[in-house]
């Protein structure tokens, strides 16, 4: 399934829209989940939540290439621009969680 990417995200070199499903696969393959978890929900000790509603794509790309914090850099030699677009599409596609008030275990 393909998701149209908003916020001015360019299409891939072949003119295709970014592929969120492939993005999920790449998110695992490139080890993003090791710090940010499989649903990109983040973990306090290792890395912040990335989605849904990720930061703007330009900022996302800039940080991945040249992180200013602890994250190791992912250069274009390792992750292509088109792959980053797919990963971003995956982050955008993530569903919002249920409201906290609807999760009894979080209201203890």
């Amino acid at each position, binding site marked *: 399934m393909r998701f149209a990417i908003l916020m001015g995200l360019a299409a891939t070199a072949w003119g295709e829209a970014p592929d969120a499903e492939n993005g999920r696969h790449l998110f695992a*393959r*490139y*080890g993003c*989940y*090791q*710090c940010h*978890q*499989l*649903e990109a*929900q*983040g*973990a*306090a*000790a*290792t890395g912040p*939540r990335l989605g849904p509603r990720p930061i703007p794509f330009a900022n996302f790309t800039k940080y991945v290439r040249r*992180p200013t*914090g*602890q994250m*190791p*850099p*992912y*250069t274009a*030699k*390792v992750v292509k621009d088109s792959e980053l677009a797919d990963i971003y599409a995956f982050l955008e596609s993530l569903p919002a*969680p*249920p*409201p*906290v008030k609807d*999760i009894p*275990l*979080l*209201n*203890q």
Partner: protein
Amino acid sequence: MSWPNRRNFLKSAAATGAAALAGKPQLARAQEAPRASAASAPSARAREAETGAPPAEVLTADRPGSDFMVDVLKRLGFEYVCSNPGSSFRGLHESIVNYGGNRDPEFITCCHEESSVAMAHGYAKIEGKPACVFAHGTVGLQHAAMALYNAYCDRAPVYVIIGNLVDAASRRPGVEWEHSVQDAGAMVRDFVKWDDLPASLPHFGESAVRAYKIAMTPPMMPVLLVADGDLQENPVAEAWPPIPKLTLARAPQGDSGSVAEAARLLVNAENPVLLAGRVARTPAGLKALIELAETLAAPVIDQGERMNFPSRHPLNLSSGRGLIAEADVIVGLELTDFWGTLHNYRDQLRRTSRRLTKPDTKLISITTGDLYLKSNYQDFERFQEVDLAMAADAEQTLPALTEAVKRLLTADRKRALEERGRKLAAAHQKALEAARVEASYGWDASPISTARLSMELWAQIKGKDWSLVSGAGGWPARLWEFDKHHQHIGSSGGAGVGYSAPASLGAALANRKYGRVSVTIQNDGDLMYAPGVLWTAAHHKIPLLSVMHNNRAYHQEVMHIQRMANRHQRGIENAGIGTTLLDPSIDFATVARGMGVYGAGPILEARDLGPAIRRALEVVEKGEPALIDVVTQPR
């Protein structure tokens, strides 16, 4: 010419002195019957006079030195000896289980010396006193060394007795030589507080009491005694030597001038911050920190190395590192790493750091770390400049500091502090609500999120008298309500993997007599170091619920290899080599069942977790251990 060795010489001496045994005060009941029997038997010398035959070799001994050693251990109040059996302390072992009746101390059978020490480590943090560990002086101590280093870094008292045979003329050929060493303590001397090699029973008695006192004086650390094989096994003709009286040293309190100066700085501060490391050695420390924080309306950042401060207290702002940047006075209380707390550090190709505090922020430290330090192992962390340093125990100093603060508070100042307290309470509530929102992401994910795991467990235990004996960092610290000292005990100290499973069991052993429900969130890699600890749990019926945080990896190391691969632009496809626990995935429920422990799982779906925890808790509340294998997200 042949020389009688020390063992045989003492044996014959014992035969002539057996009558001297009667009427001596003893601690162990089991000694009485054999002593009466020996006193009534004809001596070898008498038999020789009657028969003209050479004296028969003495083959038995009623009163070995190890019995005295057991009396010493009883006098010191040990409840348990955690040990994997070893011939170099066979005398002591036998005296524990027979002469001592296997009670106080009771022999806890461990399957690895690292487990023995880690069990004692966990026990000490619940019980507030050491358990004893027996180990071989050579092969046992080498196994035990990592766990000793953890306890040393964690400032926890552990009391180790190792067997050894100094006298080469006494040694059996073969393995007893491999198991003997000139200076047994040398191997771990860098990370035990004190060690000794007693040469006589009076020496053993003195050193045993001295070792206990040293271990229990903050900063608390492991100690080690060598129980020489001859000293254990040789019969004793003389009366037992006296056992010195144990009087523990009072923990050092900060000097009055420094306490007054710290109070003045804190009362005048607009944004003070209290940083808590290993403050609360006892429940009194928890109470004392609450009182200081409330008196000052000062936020507490609890680093979680002990149960220092209630998690839901309005002044608990442990997730608020931003407070450090705003602070004008910061008090570091028994911190492991003051410098690291006050700086941001980047682990990139060029390592950089940035100080978080303002240039004029006043820094105060109260720590016994200033009283005792060793050089070789570098657990003392980077040097932090401070404005006032009290070489003192924080728990012991806090009441005096609070009183000094109270004396300086005017009515106007109190009103200002109340306002500050209200703002901090609002910030605490905001942080709690933010944590709940964060936890909701990935709530139904498979593998199961660690937030979901934590809250499913919390739901089942919160109404009980519980103790989270490992795995309290992360979500529990943010979302559970901790308000009692025994509800968590910090972590390993030295970050040596293999601590959690045995230390949890040792803590659960201590909790057992109080009827507490001990639970642990158990990492898979940690349990794989020495899974025999499960058998120990089953054998000794130690109630402990282990909920596996099974991310099927040494996850910290996955991230490190990934960091290197990215730095070198090689892709991370191979980062799992050597760091993951896949192919095959470990079936921990089956492992547990094979050790005699109730095992359930693997649990893959979040909806299945709550019922599984309920069933396992029923087992634990009947006095047995249980394990649930939960396949989780990485963190």
